[in-house]
């Protein structure tokens, strides 16, 4: 059985006629990086909140590592869209807040040392004692990532973490995230609106049709070799095959998509697989 297994997941909000999404079936393997892509209102954030335990599904089950997910727990680290740092705590104290919860038996010094190490990993060694309002948007989000990473979760959940950042900062943090994830073999589930971001980061991309009654329409495999480089990846001929496929879906097919029947398995596509891997010159 896969590391994370989701079966027949649905969410209906009270007072709503139709569920936001339904019949959601997918799995994530250990160490995999999965992005979920779809228009606003398809329930991406709700899916992530159910995975994190902050929200409850109306139907269906989530099983992670052989156990049903019920309520929030320390085995899943969440990076929030709005970074959600406590403004009265320094960057270091924000990270320590999580570390202390994860290992309550640790001494002050151990907690501090581990938190500093994690902040150094995201390149914030120089800003340990700064309050969030003294940090730039990118630095704040790095602290948020460090806080989630520091508790060494089995799965990292990212809710569109780079949405509010400028392109340059976004690129830098994407690189950092890729390095850390590669080094730690972290399993990641990430929401994004950005097609290029999803191709750069993900092993597989889940495409959601439009809500309400959104469904998992397709799973796109990104077979580009790793390590990937943000500056050269778009020269790979397969890149645009994947990109065009994703954009096509979002622009044309996401609205009209109708599942053949309830509980169907989403189609798995691998755009560009017919193109041979380019040989290094």
């Amino acid at each position, binding site marked *: 059985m896969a590391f994370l297994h989701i079966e027949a997941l649905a969410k209906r909000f009270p007072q709503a006629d139709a569920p936001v999404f339904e019949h959601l079936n997918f799995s994530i393997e250990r160490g995999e990086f999965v992005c979920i892509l779809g228009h606003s209102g398809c329930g991406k954030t709700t899916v992530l909140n159910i995975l994190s335990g902050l929200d409850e599904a109306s139907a269906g089950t989530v099983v992670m590592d052989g156990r049903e997910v019920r309520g929030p727990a320390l085995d899943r680290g969440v990076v929030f869209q709005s970074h*959600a740092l406590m403004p*009265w705590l320094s960057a270091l104290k924000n990270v320590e*807040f999580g570390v202390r919860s994860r290992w309550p038996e640790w001494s002050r010094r151990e907690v501090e040392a581990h938190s500093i190490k994690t902040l150094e990993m995201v390149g914030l060694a120089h800003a340990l004692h700064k309050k969030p309002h003294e940090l730039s948007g990118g630095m704040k989000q790095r602290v948020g990532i460090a806080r989630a990473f520091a508790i060494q979760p089995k799965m990292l959940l990212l809710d569109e973490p780079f949405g509010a950042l400028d392109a340059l900062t976004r690129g830098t943090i994407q690189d950092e995230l890729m390095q850390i994830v590669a080094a730690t073999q972290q399993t990641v589930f990430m929401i994004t609106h950005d097609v290029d971001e999803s191709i750069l980061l993900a092993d597989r991309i889940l495409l959601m049709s439009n809500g309400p009654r959104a469904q998992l329409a397709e799973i796109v495999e990104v077979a580009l070799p790793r390590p990937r480089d943000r500056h050269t990846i778009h020269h790979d001929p397969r890149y645009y095959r994947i990109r065009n496929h994703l954009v096509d879906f979002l622009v044309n097919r996401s609205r009209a998509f109708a599942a053949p029947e309830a509980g169907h398995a989403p189609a798995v596509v691998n755009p560009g697989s017919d193109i041979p891997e380019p040989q290094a010159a």
Partner: protein
Amino acid sequence: MTTLRKPWLAPLLSVLLLAFLLGVWQLAAQPETTVVDPGLDPEYAALIGAAAAGGGQSAMPTPGEVGGKLWAHLTDPFYDRGTNDKGLGIQIGYSLARVLAGYLIAVALAVPLGFLIGMSPLAYRALDPYIQVLKPISPLAWMPLALYTIKDSGTSAVFVIFICSVWPILVNTAFGVASVRRDWLNVARTLEVSPLRTAFTVILPAAAPTILTGMRISIGIAWLVIVAAEMLVGGTGIGYFVWNEWNNLSIANIIVAILVIGVVGMALDTMLARLARAVSYRE
């Protein structure tokens, strides 16, 4: 605020304004030279003072007289010559003790209760009608009820302070707790932080500025109310002092007391403002 180019200008204007006001006061309180009515009964005149008998001198003292009284009080604030003649320091001490007692009880009760109301929409809806009705009641209206049930006048004054301080703290705490950002609570939930630790490490610091604002409003109201309350209950305290000096028709003493009440009120407010700054945060 823009920095002034001449930093001495504002203090100078303040001093000039003070000099002007004192001058006007001096002129207004100037004793008129009156001719004593030759037909006046000399014994009566001797009894109440020649000027008063002639109707010439008002009871309004000049700034100089008030200054002299102020100096006398400041140099000897803690004398005690019987029930109706105690130093200003002692009277202020009594008032402060009552205010602090009532205020601290109010804080001890209103902050936890406000937490409960802020966290639970049910508790909020259940208690809201009571708060809405009780909040606008003048604290002094409780005085007869307090005197009847508590019977001790000093304790009644403390109760009145309590009842007037409790509402701003309660309402502000509930509001502050209810408006803690959902995200911060979610962070605590995903980190499996216990409810008690969440209350102390997330909700309390997040709501602290709002709570402190309520506490600052309360201490201001409490200091306003203590003067009136002590006028009613009598015995000791700055309010009683003012009333007693009114009975003595010593306007100079009353003005001194008014000044002291203002300064102490300002000191209390400044203290709470400092505290509020210490717990404030920028997002």
